[in-house]
């Protein structure tokens, strides 16, 4: 591999979704030599599928809205393991970031006064939970993610960002000091493998919903950044925290936005009962997603599910009328017809809780700098490594993300990472060059696949992994299932290490990409499984039959998964926002 080509940049961003493009835009404007490495053309990234909107206190629907109320909702929604300093930063900087998007051209829907349209979403309140339901989610109909991603891509074109489109990042390159100094990447079109050197490497690789058999996530959401960081030995935070979105279309898994309930839709069981009134008397269908998802599963388990097998519930929208549906939810009408064969103007949509979002990820500070722990358990910055968006755990979502907060997260923290890196580069940050042996270790797994001569096939192993996660690490969890799941994953690791890539061709070899993705799915699945098994309480999205209560005495903490020892440690939650009083943990009801 001595004749391998190398490319050098000031900063590289791995991932061309919302957070990656926002970070790239900041750096491109600064004139730093920046490249976005993305395995799909940027507008094919999963941000494009976000529907309902971007939650932010821009005080349009309610001129008295206050970012502190949004921060309160976010902390409560996260079941109090949200880092309050990060939530404070996101909610207070949010309006600036959203107005920037509007100035860039994002086609937001509008109120009659010409301001940005905002709709109610789950877990939103006025006056710190005392003022009733808020309407804080800024929307472009129900295609906000599409509008946001295209706007960011367009503005990167305007600012001449360098794109390595359809390049697949294989692994991080670390120098002798353990600093991250670039990555190995493959041009998918030609199969050429290149060493990319950089002073700052940003993981903006999004989520990994494809570890589950049923997910709202795109096929590309395979946790590539998480896999790379884990293989490089870096810890992951709160990986047990996976959000199951209440309304995935039954059978297809395709997302139906929470905005449907924000606009007045509601869930019914087989008796036609609006059952959320029993589970969340105040917020009803707009309680936290974890609360609604559990309520749906309870209805199904107690025999009140719909359909022949009683295995789903229904989302009723017909009472909203054709005008609201065509104006505010046109994409949902389309998706329902295509994937559920239902016209929501006439009939309810069959829905079921579906894996949707990874609250955990690479632990970072508000500047996007990746964090690990020293021998005494103190935070330590990883030189050269950054993360933002769903791949990061900054942590604004804690144990359960609020709807509309993911788009805000990715623009606020993509922007923050870009600004910080610009400054660090101005100060002349530099690290030791990688040695040939460092490059070789980053090449290890692509070499392994290319030299494989027999063994099991990738699609079969992937399906098995997805079934393990679906069955043993779903909405409700318990010790014995999870223990079995962890064992099955350990066995799967052996088999994947001996699996076979039969197609070794170079030009646009998607089989090779899928093999490399499988390694990442396994890393994410195992981190999830071990973290879920070890967090012995129920909090937010992590719900255990055997430990049904929240345990603040032992678990008002982030979990930290250390991949080398496969050990779960803890990390303190930040309770010291800079400008507001701490939101003390309370019992969480809606």
């Amino acid at each position: 591999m001595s004749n391998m080509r190398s490319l050098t940049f000031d900063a590289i961003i791995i991932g061309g979704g919302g957070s990656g493009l926002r970070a790239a835009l900041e750096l491109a404007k600064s004139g730093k030599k920046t490249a976005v490495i993305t395995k799909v053309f940027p507008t094919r990234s999963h941000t494009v599928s976000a529907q309902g909107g971007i939650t932010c206190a821009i005080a349009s629907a309610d001129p008295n809205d206050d970012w502190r109320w949004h921060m309160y909702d976010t902390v409560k929604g996260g079941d109090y393991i949200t880092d309050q300093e990060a939530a404070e930063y996101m909610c207070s900087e949010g309006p600036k970031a959203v107005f920037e998007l509007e100035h860039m051209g994002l086609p937001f829907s509008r109120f009659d006064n010409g301001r940005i349209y905002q709709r109610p979403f789950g877990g939103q309140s006025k006056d710190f939970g005392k003022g009733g339901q808020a309407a804080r989610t800024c929307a472009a109909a129900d295609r906000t993610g599409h509008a946001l991603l295209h706007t960011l891509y367009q503005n990167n074109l305007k600012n001449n960002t360098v794109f390595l489109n359809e390049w697949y990042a294989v692994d991080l390159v670390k120098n002798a000091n353990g600093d991250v100094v670039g990555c190995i990447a493959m041009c998918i079109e030609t199969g050429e493998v290149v060493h990319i050197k950089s002073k700052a490497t940003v993981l903006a690789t999004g989520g990994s919903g494809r570890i589950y058999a049923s997910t709202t996530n795109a096929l590309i959401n395979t946790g590539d950044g998480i896999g790379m960081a884990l293989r490089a030995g870096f810890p992951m935070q709160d990986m047990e925290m996976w959000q199951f979105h209440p309304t995935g279309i039954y059978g297809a898994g395709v997302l139906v936005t929470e905005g449907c309930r924000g606009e007045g839709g509601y869930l019914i069981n087989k008796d036609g009962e609006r059952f959320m009134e029993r589970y969340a008397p105040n917020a009803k269908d707009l309680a936290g997603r974890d609360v609604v998802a559990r309520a749906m599963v309870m209805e199904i388990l107690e025999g009140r599910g719909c359909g022949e097998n009683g295995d789903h519930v229904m989302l009723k929208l017909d009472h909203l009328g054709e005008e609201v549906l065509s104006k505010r939810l046109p994409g949902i009408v389309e998706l329902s017809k295509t994937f559920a064969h239902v016209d929501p103007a006439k009939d309810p949509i069959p829905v079921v809780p579906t894996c949707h979002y990874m609250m955990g990820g690479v632990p970072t500070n508000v500047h996007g700098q990746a964090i690990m722990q020293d021998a005494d358990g103190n935070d330590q910055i990883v030189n050269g490594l950054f993360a933002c968006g769903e791949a990061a755990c900054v942590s604004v979502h804690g144990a359960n993300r609020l709807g509309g907060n993911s788009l805000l997260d990715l623009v606020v923290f993509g922007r923050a990472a870009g600004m910080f890196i610009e400054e660090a580069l101005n100060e002349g940050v530099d690290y030791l060059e990688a040695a040939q042996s460092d490059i070789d270790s980053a090449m290890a797994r692509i070499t392994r696949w290319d030299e494989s001569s027999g063994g099991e096939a990738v699609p079969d192993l992937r399906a098995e992994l997805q079934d393990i996660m679906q069955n043993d690490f779903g909405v409700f969890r318990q010790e014995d299932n999870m223990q079995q799941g962890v064992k099955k994953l350990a066995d799967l690791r052996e088999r994947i290490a001996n699996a076979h890539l039969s197609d070794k061709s170079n030009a646009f070899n998607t089989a090779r990409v899928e093999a490399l993705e499988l390694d990442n799915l396994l890393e994410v699945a195992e981190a999830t499984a071990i973290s879920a098994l070890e967090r012995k309480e129920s909090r937010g999205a992590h719900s255990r039959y055997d430990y049904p209560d929240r345990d603040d005495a032992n678990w008002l903490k982030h979990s930290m998964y250390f991949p080398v020892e496969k050990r779960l440690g803890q990390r303190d939650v930040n309770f010291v926002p800079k400008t507001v009083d701490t939101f003390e943990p309370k019992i969480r009801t809606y």
Partner: protein
Amino acid sequence: MSTLQVSIYRYNPETDSAPYMQEFQLDTQGRDIMVLNALEMIKQQDSSMAYRRSCREGVCGSDGMNMNGKNGLACITPLSEVVKDNKLVLRPLPGLPVIRDLVVDMGVFYKQYESIQPYLQNDTNPPATERLQSPEERDKLDGLYECILCACCSTACPSFWWNPDKFVGPAGLLQAYRFLADSRDTATSERLARLEDPFSLFRCRGIMNCVAVCPKGLNPTRAIGKIREMLLSNAT
């Protein structure tokens, strides 16, 4: 009857001197799955089959291809919509260079998109909050901004096949109009000036293949007509 005959365009530049059609038998067990699901089943039989896909719900625009003669997105096209006489023929989008199998080189398509400067231009300083836009002004962007850049339209357009380097094509022109129609954009005359030559816009012959194939139900021909009107009224 449940065994579907699928015929797929194959080409691997490393091993094939010329493209060829390969036949597959697919047992769909009578289910009306999407074309993308059928392709996934075929990839299980033959892992070397190359195609792009991402969202699998019709919003990312990755899997545009030609299915029984018509361009569309594989992920939102049920077999029942395209299969005739139990046969399905899958080819790459027409008119673009093939990289491998169903994967085409979209370079010229993206270049035309970039040529219209697809970003909002406003020469005034932005306010501290958002720029205001009335719901009626915003309504003008409906049917335009939803484009997913799948290239189904441009690769169904004979004018684009003939002059892909000079004719912007329906997708790019739809986006050109998206910015011309935006009350917040102030670059109207510059945008129009760039489209005045005989090729960029005027190679559109109103064939309307673009409208017939757009998987999002958009109407590039109408947008092109609107730009023509703007150019005319600008000229007088």
